């Protein structure tokens, strides 16, 4: 419990540092948002509009940087992340709120499936070396060595096109309104199959390989021989003794990979024009949309920190040796 409090305090400190950096970095960038809006509109903005924009972005006040910093925290705690330029005048929090479910839905579920499937195959491959599962390894390793964007493009080229079942882009059929109904859900699932499959193909071999190697390492431990000598069933030795111990590094790896769900999926979403956070970030960079970038970075930072905390907790639960009594 004490350990957990210590870790939480550490992560809170890290979060504070990250948020503070997030506040200062845009202020170190030359130019300001109004200027970039002007240039986006190629100068066709009246002087009045420019003034009101300055007021809107809070650039009119001559508050000190310290006051601005405190204000920033105040706004942050109210969930106010500013206004997006790209989708002006939609608040950043709304933009993120709209795209986050897509990313979490697609990449989150895929990550979980990839972990479960890869780990299960790894257990099989490591326990019975030389079986058919072992034969799978070179194939999956080959697939994961292909650059992801290329794999995505090949998938689009091969499986989509006129008359094909799979759509090549987007998160749902154009014209549908996001809702939990019989039209939207099937369409969303249909749109997610191809990106999900490509993620699976490219990420699974990592889980298989690491689980297999841990299984092989653990299999030569003395307690595995003891378990055999005890006359336990093959299944019990494989699962409760070997896999249970081999799982530890994979579980913390999994918890960490949860943190990259939000941030690490840029390519998937760009290639498939999927309306998730990564695609939004891509657009934000293109339009110099600082508030949106800031907001997305904040979300990424927080999710990585939360994932780290989860990894700590998972390890604590699974490995009694890390618990301090």
């Amino acid at each position, binding site marked *: 419990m004490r350990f957990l409090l210590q870790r939480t305090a550490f992560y809170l400190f890290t979060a504070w540092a990250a948020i503070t950096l997030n506040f200062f970095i845009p202020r170190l960038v030359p130019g300001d948002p109004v200027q970039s809006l002007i240039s986006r509109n190629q100068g066709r903005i009246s002087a009045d509009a420019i003034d009101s924009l300055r007021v809107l972005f809070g650039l009119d006040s001559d508050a000190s940087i310290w006051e601005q910093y405190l204000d920033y925290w105040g706004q942050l705690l109210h969930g106010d992340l500013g206004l997006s330029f790209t989708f002006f005048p939609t608040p950043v929090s709304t933009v993120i709120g709209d795209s986050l479910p897509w990313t979490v839905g697609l990449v989150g579920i895929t990550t979980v499936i990839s972990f479960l499937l890869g780990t299960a195959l790894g257990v099989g491959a490591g326990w019975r070396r030389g079986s058919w599962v072992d034969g799978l390894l070179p194939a999956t390793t080959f697939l994961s060595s292909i650059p992801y964007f290329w794999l995505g493009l090949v998938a689009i080229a091969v499986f989509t096109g006129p008359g094909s079942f799979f759509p090549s882009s987007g998160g749902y059929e154009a014209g549908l309104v996001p809702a939990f109904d019989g039209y939207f859900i099937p369409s969303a699932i249909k749109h997610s199959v191809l990106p999900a499959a490509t993620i699976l193909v490219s990420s699974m071999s990592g889980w298989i390989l690491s689980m297999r190697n841990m299984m092989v390492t653990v299999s030569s431990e*003395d*307690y595995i*021989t*003891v378990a055999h*000598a005890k*006359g*336990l069933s093959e299944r019990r030795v494989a699962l409760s003794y070997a896999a249970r111990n081999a799982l530890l590094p994979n579980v913390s790896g999994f918890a960490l990979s949860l943190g990259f769900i939000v941030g690490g999926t840029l390519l998937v979403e760009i290639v498939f024009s999927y309306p998730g956070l990564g695609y939004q970030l891509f657009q934000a960079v293109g339009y110099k949309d600082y508030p949106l970038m800031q907001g997305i970075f904040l979300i990424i930072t927080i999710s990585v920190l939360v994932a780290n905390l989860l990894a700590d907790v998972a390890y604590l639960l699974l490995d009694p*040796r890390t618990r301090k009594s």
Partner: protein
Amino acid sequence: MSDPVLEIRGLRVDYGLGDAAVHAVRDVDLTLHRGEVLGLAGESGSGKSTLAYGLTRLLPPPGVVSGGQVVYHPVDGPPVDVLTLSPAQLRQFRWAETSIVFQGAMNSLNPVHKVSTQLLDVIKAHDPTSTAAGRLARARDLLRLVGIAADRLDSYPHQLSGGMRQRVMIAMALALEPQVVIMDEPTTALDVVMQRQILGQLAELRERLGFAVLFITHDLSLLVEFSDRIAIMYGGRIVEEAPAAQLYRQALHPYTEGLLHSFPALRGPRRELTGIPGSPPDLRAMPKGCAFHPRCPKAFDPCDKKVPVLGAAEPGRDVACWLHPVAAPVPH
């Protein structure tokens, strides 16, 4: 002498297959009688542990049992050859009839499971009809048997000291009241005080429960004191087998003599520690004839030509050495 409980006949264990195979155990004959402690001693690499793993069919690849029989005599019922049991029969046989205490006290327990889990699962696996409460009571009794407080059941292995862990392993080995307990250097990783305590406890438990022990160690001094009979292994063969006291008083094989002179006696006249010159034979290139002859101070004419056969030199004493012509070779 009581009836045999485990008879090893002509057991051969190889590492690898075909011509590249290394013969780690060569035609070993060994009989364990009901309730006795049979010590098996030898240098590292002499094949002691391989023999133990081979007879319980726990050899990790590339180890292969390439010949022989391991006949187990149950208390009631006909004898069975352990080497021909089906996987399901073997699972039933293991631990219930022959349990093992392994070398590494530190690593024999799974670090992520509680002591109770590891004690209970073996009882459950062999007696599926037992109730949870019954198993728990049995586990408590077992811990008490080896002098550990019953509340230690909820401990994880890393919370126990090395000696406690080994005692937990001994408790586990006795869980199903087996006829044979194989101990592969059970006290090697422990300090001498703990070693003594555990051995004392073991001797007492054996008195009480009457199981037979195959005690494997490189520490001959330990065996002299603790076992009824001692077998000496060299280069994968048994070279001498005799009652412990006789062997200690007068070793027949020069190798045994060398081992006996490798540790000091506590009483009796002072004598020089000589040890054995040279190093154990390379199993891939065994010397011709007697495997010990390159190191043997008494080697003579036939030693480098013909392998001596294990046989009775005196009643109750077997030796494989040309110095002691065999009256009657041990029948296969």
